[in-house]
């Protein structure tokens, strides 16, 4: 394994770990559930993806083993994590979790839309 690849893989792992740490800070410091989900679903996904890509490259160059399972895992995390965030936040909105008091825009509350939200809550 060449030194360049070594350094590249190390940087990828460190970046992934750093992004996961930033996600944790975001979860602790952001004011409401919507901002927190913004931190959790984006940066955590990228952090996990970077670590997985680094693992894939490591086994590829070190052991000459191309792990199809890791590729599958990368695709899986990339597809599911944002959808999970979307579903969590939608459920939070429909159960009247309040927005942060500094929020300025709530498009779902506009005339006509609020009717739909009300109907969904009742169903």
């Amino acid at each position, binding site marked *: 394994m060449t030194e360049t690849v070594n350094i590249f893989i190390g940087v990828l792992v460190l970046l992934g770990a750093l992004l996961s740490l930033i996600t944790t800070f975001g979860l602790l410091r952001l004011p409401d559930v919507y901002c927190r989900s913004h931190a959790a679903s984006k940066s955590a996904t990228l952090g996990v993806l970077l670590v997985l890509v680094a693992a894939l490259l490591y086994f590829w160059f070190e052991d000459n083993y191309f792990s199809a*399972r890791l590729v*599958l895992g990368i*695709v*899986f995390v990339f*597809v*599911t994590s944002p*959808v999970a965030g*979307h*579903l969590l936040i939608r459920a939070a909105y429909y159960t009247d979790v309040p927005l942060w008091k500094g929020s300025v825009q709530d498009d779902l509350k506009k005339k006509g839309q609020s009717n739909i939200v009300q*109907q*969904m809550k*009742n*169903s």
Partner: protein
Amino acid sequence: MKVNDLILQTVTTFLAFIIFIFSIYLFFAGHYTPGGGFIGGLMTSAALVLLLLAYDIKTMQKALPINFLTVAAVGLMISILTGVGAFLFDVPFLTHAFQYIELPILGKTALASTLAFDLGVYLVVVGIAMTIIQTIGESE
């Protein structure tokens, strides 16, 4: 009014296939690498539960008209028959055979009769898990 689940349903149609394929991979990988009938069966029922979450129980029964209790029974039958089959060769109950065979496309393949036993475990796990979940889900 029906809740609009477009994003969840679209992703589910795509992801269920990945989970199914991975569960089948786990089932066949069990002889030499981590995996096997139990975890493969659980993964398959996880894919079915994902379908149940995205669509309702009636759509599922239309798409997969299977009585999962029968699946569990068939699996148990297969497992017992692989054990009883050992008597035909005058060896004790549940003795399994193992051989390398040249197959036309796959080449040299290790074939073990344990795989049939594992298939039984797989079917029992899928059947039991889905029966539990559907029974709990249907009772209002």
